[in-house]
């Protein structure tokens, strides 16, 4: 038999009889899934039982939340769909935080859960939870599958929905009897065809013309760049657009990396903890071009006072986001890449020299108050540690941050040059994200120098995943920005609750000793000079390294938009003299 005819006869083998569990893995294999992050249990065991026969690597997490964050980090680093798996009941409910994280940040995930047998549904059986009901508001879509022959159509549709349009998590809950039952498997027949789902929008020509009129006629324009640019792989087009029009670029937290940090048109992060000059530029603009961002309350400040003099163009793939928070003049609904391709031929070059010079003037005022200009006074500040980590990794690390003060300092002081080099949770903000997401990121990009930057509070929420890291032999370096307290909450107490520090001080374990219990090398850093040396040691070490960086406890993230205030009314860092 020739190869051709063998392949032809291979095709004729379909449909063939398989168990539901085999169909799950057959579908994952055909969706080119290389890694599944999960935790086994009774109701998903039929799938686990047949998994070794397929070319899929299972990563055993220590908690299902960790498994979903790993899949999320895997998706964000590699650009594919992340897959997480868990059993029914507690396995499924433990996934909830991870799923909500992916939903808020538009991360493409397929979460597969086992469910009790269909005959037991509704009987409050052991480990039965209505997980499709629980996850209804935090998934893009979900499925309860009770028959083996429904598995392939549901899974194919789940992958299609997760990755198309505005990406998001999709959960497929499969009963144990559906996994154990048999049916004929026909991949072609299971082609996804959800009749009401239309993810591909294109802007209308009239809207494109109107947008071009605004762009070409503006004197003080600013581009607001968000996660959609990364998800839409439009980084090069954004760069071309900004350079041709000479429009400065501000970004949301999740937009960081989509535009080179050292580019002359890069302003940096806007929003609650954005640099003051960036927010001032946004507030003074006469045109905002929002690309793949959703005017989250963290970036607008008080809505009524947001960019009062600016016309607004919103380029967004999700029609429901346009005019949701901020009324706009033109909504261009579509993939950022398609929209920019439509806009680019029509933009006229413009040097905007006066406007750029004006923004530079705003910058000078803020630079004087930057902590990076402060003299070394013997204290180790987190902002200095992260700045030095940036230099020591030559700005080339893939950084995964947790949630809190360190996350903002990272966004301010680690300058990212390339896309998908910062992975962080912007929407939901779950502490405990960094360590598992970093594991997923490293598995997606084995050549990347992956650093998890995490607070001492958030680290302890998912530090059990150190076990996963060791078991999988994943080389992720961890920098704990250890200030001995829940810093961001403490900061809120300091500014808005009369400095009553209730329930924010932490009694921590010795993280270096803890690391050694896992066979991980731990290094304690207590002075500024130690940061670069520790990073160098981490780079030279084969396995994972954990840095316990003991930083000033009472420091706060500056600048900060005052509660309920406009974007340009910021609380500024006191000058260095005042801190002494």
């Amino acid at each position, binding site marked *: 038999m020739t190869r051709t005819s063998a392949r032809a006869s291979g095709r004729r083998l379909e449909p063939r009889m398989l168990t539901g569990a085999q169909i799950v893995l057959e579908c994952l294999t055909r969706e080119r899934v290389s890694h599944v992050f999960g935790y086994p249990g009774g109701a998903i065991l039929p799938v686990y039982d047949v998994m070794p026969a397929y070319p899929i690597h299972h990563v055993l997490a220590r908690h299902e939340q960790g498994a979903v964050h790993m899949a999320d980090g895997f998706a964000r680093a590699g650009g594919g769909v992340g897959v997480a798996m868990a059993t029914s009941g507690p396995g499924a409910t433990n996934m909830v935080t991870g799923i909500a994280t992916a939903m808020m940040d538009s991360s493409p995930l397929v979460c597969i859960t086992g469910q009790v047998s269909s005959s037991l549904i509704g009987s409050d059986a052991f480990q039965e939870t209505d997980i499709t009901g629980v996850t209804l508001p935090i998934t893009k879509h979900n499925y309860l599958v009770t028959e083996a022959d429904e598995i392939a159509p549901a899974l194919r549709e789940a992958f299609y929905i997760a990755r198309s349009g505005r990406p998001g998590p999709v959960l497929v809950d499969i009963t144990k009897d559906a996994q154990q039952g048999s049916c004929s498997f026909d991949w072609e027949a299971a082609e996804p065809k959800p009749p*009401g789902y239309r993810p591909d929008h294109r802007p209308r020509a009239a809207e494109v013309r109107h947008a071009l009129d605004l762009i070409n006629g503006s004197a003080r324009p600013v581009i607001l760049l968000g996660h959609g640019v990364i998800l839409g792989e439009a980084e090069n087009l954004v760069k071309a657009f900004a350079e041709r029009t000479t429009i400065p670029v501000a970004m949301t937290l999740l937009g960081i990396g989509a535009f080179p940090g050292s580019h002359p048109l890069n302003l940096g992060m806007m929003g609650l903890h954005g640099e003051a000059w960036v927010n001032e530029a946004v507030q003074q603009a006469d045109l905002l071009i929002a690309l793949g961002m959703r005017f989250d309350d963290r970036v607008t400040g008080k809505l009524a006072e947001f960019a009062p003099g600016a016309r607004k163009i919103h380029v967004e793939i999700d*029609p429901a986001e346009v*005019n949701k928070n901020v009324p706009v003049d033109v909504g261009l609904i579509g993939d950022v890449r398609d929209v920019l391709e439509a806009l680019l031929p029509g933009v006229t070059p413009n040097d905007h020299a006066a406007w750029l010079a004006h923004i530079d003037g705003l910058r000078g005022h803020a630079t004087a108050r930057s902590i990076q200009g402060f003299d070394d006074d013997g204290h180790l500040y987190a902002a200095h540690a992260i700045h030095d980590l940036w230099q020591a990794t030559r700005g080339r690390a893939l950084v995964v941050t947790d949630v809190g003060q360190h996350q903002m300092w990272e966004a301010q002081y680690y300058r990212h040059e390339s896309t998908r080099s910062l992975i962080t949770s912007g929407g939901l903000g779950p502490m405990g994200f960094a360590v598992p997401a970093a594991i997923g990121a490293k598995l997606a990009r084995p050549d990347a120098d992956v650093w998890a930057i995490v607070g001492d509070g958030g680290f302890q929420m998912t530090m059990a995943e150190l076990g996963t890291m060791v078991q999988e032999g994943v080389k992720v370096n961890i920098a704990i920005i250890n200030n001995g307290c829940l810093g961001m909450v403490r900061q809120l107490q300091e500014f808005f609750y009369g400095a009553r520090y209730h329930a924010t001080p932490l009694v921590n374990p010795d993280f270096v000793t803890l690391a050694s219990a896992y066979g991980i090398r731990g290094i304690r850093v207590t002075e500024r000079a130690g940061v670069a040396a520790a990073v160098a040691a981490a780079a030279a070490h084969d396995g994972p390294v954990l840095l316990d960086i003991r930083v000033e406890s009472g420091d706060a993230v500056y600048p900060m938009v005052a509660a309920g205030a406009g974007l340009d009314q910021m609380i500024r860092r006191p000058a260095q003299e005042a801190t002494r």
Partner: protein
Amino acid sequence: MSSTFVVYVEDKPGVLNRVASLFRRRAFNIESLTVGHTDTPGVSRMTIVVGTDRDGARKVEAHLYKLVNVLRVDDVTSTPAVFRDLAMIKVQASAETRSHIMQLVDVYRARIVDVAPDSLMVEVTGTEDKIDSLLDVLRPYGVLEAVRTGRVAMARGAARTPRVRPASAALRGPMPRIPREPAASGPVQLTA
């Protein structure tokens, strides 16, 4: 103020829950919701009355379109449409009052659908106003029980139920748009 939507959805388990959950999640108040089959197999039709203004109505429509099982959303609030509510009202009726009640029922073009020694059951269809009014005039006789379906709506003219199309055709079909004012001359403004 209220907005009325006609929503076509796939006839699958849990779809009503998805729609209702959306309104709860986005803090929109459902004033009435009716569901039923259509003439097309696999397609159900909802009439939803929501307490929201035009701006809110646009958000509702856009969010409904994000539900995978939603096929089409028509905001019929200000389009020519027929609105109907159906009510059944059980009212006390003695030998003396019975004929009075029957006269009132005639005036409202309602029908008596059940007669018992001490009561009558009245069936009435019409706008909510008309039914409210009939309830008001029957109340002095003693309303024992009343049930209303909530508003159903249908746009006038030739628009029809969407078919459940295969994906390939659906992808070629017209794209759902952000809800907006009818096209006016000049630049497109998305805000009211």
